[in-house]
């Protein structure tokens, strides 16, 4: 169950501001593709457009060869899921883990609810008795695991990761990244991951795109980071800055 993602000339404007002029990219099935760039460069907007959380964009986006707009809602939900940046804001504060996970199953009228929830909890490495906990009884890392479990439970093919670790502690970041990598190896997800941390991209992604002001200025393989092989001046500068920062640590 893997699917490729292709975005062709995606553009969106909010009022008079052209946030994305024209973005095109191809992600192979089972690949992990990173999107990096400074704040406000439109990285998250690409994910929100692709998942149709924003739908007034122009251009075309295909998942597994089918246009996302042509997919009916239920199929789309079972194809694409998203993990959000802030685990404190992405879980409903008054829903227990059990109801967070059982809602999507109820919406899609899936059977074997208990088994599916148990499977998702095991997949993200949480004990089953956490099902009866509420978000405020979980740590940040545990919350993000629940958010990932919620994304997994509909068995999607593509996972959109919107800075999944930036709100977490460094040691917890590593845990979550390793979890995401293990899940990709086990289930063959296609990842489209937004990050502003090149170390995370280096750890996770096969290729990545550098965005500036809504444009993709360069698409590079992972190996380009260490030697800084970027051709575009902005991408070059970004990677150099990140390398300098890492050396300074």
């Amino acid at each position, binding site marked *: 169950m893997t699917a490729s993602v292709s975005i062709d000339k995606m553009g969106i404007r909010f009022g008079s501001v052209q946030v994305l002029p024209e973005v095109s990219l191809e992600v192979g099935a089972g690949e992990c593709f990173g999107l990096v760039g400074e704040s406000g460069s439109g990285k998250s907007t690409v994910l929100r457009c692709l998942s149709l959380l924003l739908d007034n964009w122009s251009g075309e986006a295909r998942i597994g060869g089918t246009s996302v707009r042509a997919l009916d809602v239920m199929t789309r939900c079972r194809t694409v899921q998203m993990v959000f940046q802030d685990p404190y*804001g992405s879980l*409903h504060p008054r829903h227990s883990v059990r109801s967070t996970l059982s809602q999507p199953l109820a*919406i899609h009228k899936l059977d074997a609810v208990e088994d599916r929830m148990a499977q998702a909890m095991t997949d993200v490495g949480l004990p089953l008795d956490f099902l009866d906990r509420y978000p*405020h009884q979980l740590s940040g890392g545990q919350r993000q695991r629940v958010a990932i479990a919620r994304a997994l439970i509909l068995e999607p093919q593509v996972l959109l990761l919107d800075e999944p670790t930036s709100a977490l502690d460094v040691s917890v970041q590593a845990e979550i990244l390793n979890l995401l990598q293990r899940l990709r190896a086990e289930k063959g997800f296609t990842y489209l991951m937004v990050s502003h941390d090149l170390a995370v991209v280096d750890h996770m992604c096969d290729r990545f795109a550098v965005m500036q002001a809504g444009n993709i200025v360069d698409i590079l393989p992972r190996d380009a980071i260490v030697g800084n092989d970027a051709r575009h001046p902005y991408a070059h500068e970004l990677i150099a800055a990140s390398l300098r920062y890492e050396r300074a640590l």
Partner: protein
Amino acid sequence: MTLTNTASQPRKKPHAQWLRAGMNILRFLLHSPPSAFGLTVLAALALTALFAPLIASHDPYLQDLGNALAAPSRAHYFGTDELGRDIFSRLVFGARITLTIVFLVTIVVGPVGLFVGSVAGFYGGRVDTILMRVTDIFLSFPSLILSLAFVAALGPSLNNAIIAISLTAWPPIARLARAETLTLRAADYIAAARLQGASPSRIIWHSIVPMCLPSVLIRLTLNMATVILTAAGLGFLGLGAQPPLPEWGAMIATGRRHMIDSWWLVTFPGLAILSVSLAFNLLGDGLRDALDPKQMNKR
């Protein structure tokens, strides 16, 4: 992290969570003196209403013109009114009327306000504009004046008073629910629910209403004092409960004529209205603190 398998154990019953939450709220309320006072008065009111025939010493409608305007005594705890009816018994039976008004107004106003507010806030745009302008129209009249107009149009009776109060009490609730919804609408968990294919009605019911409920509940409790006062005001003006119903406001209105020489006619119904309104206000304040989600499920 250790993996423990509890799937084989029987699932905890869902109502256990609610029971625990309820007990926690109750314990919290009883810990602070003001809300404990409010809770006690309201419990006493509810018990009085429930067991009115047992508590009342006389028939509240029984007239005894030979014993009219009798001062408080062993035979008539709170004295008798101008028709010789026992005021204590009338107050006890009046508790039923007060509770009926409060209960009916609340179950009409709460859902209507919550529905209008959350729908307007969630959909935004034209739906929001239309619903909020309607709300504005209702809000632009003082509520007592608007209730007066409604009762005048519908005809004076207790039921019409309840309808009139409900019609004027929902807009603040709707405003509150809308404001809450607007702050929630952009939350990531709403986006996540959308990505799971949840319909708008499911998102409103499952995600937005639970978040609005505590503040709406607090607002409703604080509103009850106003509702009681408005009902008493309508009764006082002769537009609410009609004689011989022992409604507290109406009792004050008829007692007014004899107020100078028979102070007990207005004092006791007045004290009843005062203490019940105060109790609702104190309880509302206590609920505001108690309904914090972190307090609610603390184990």
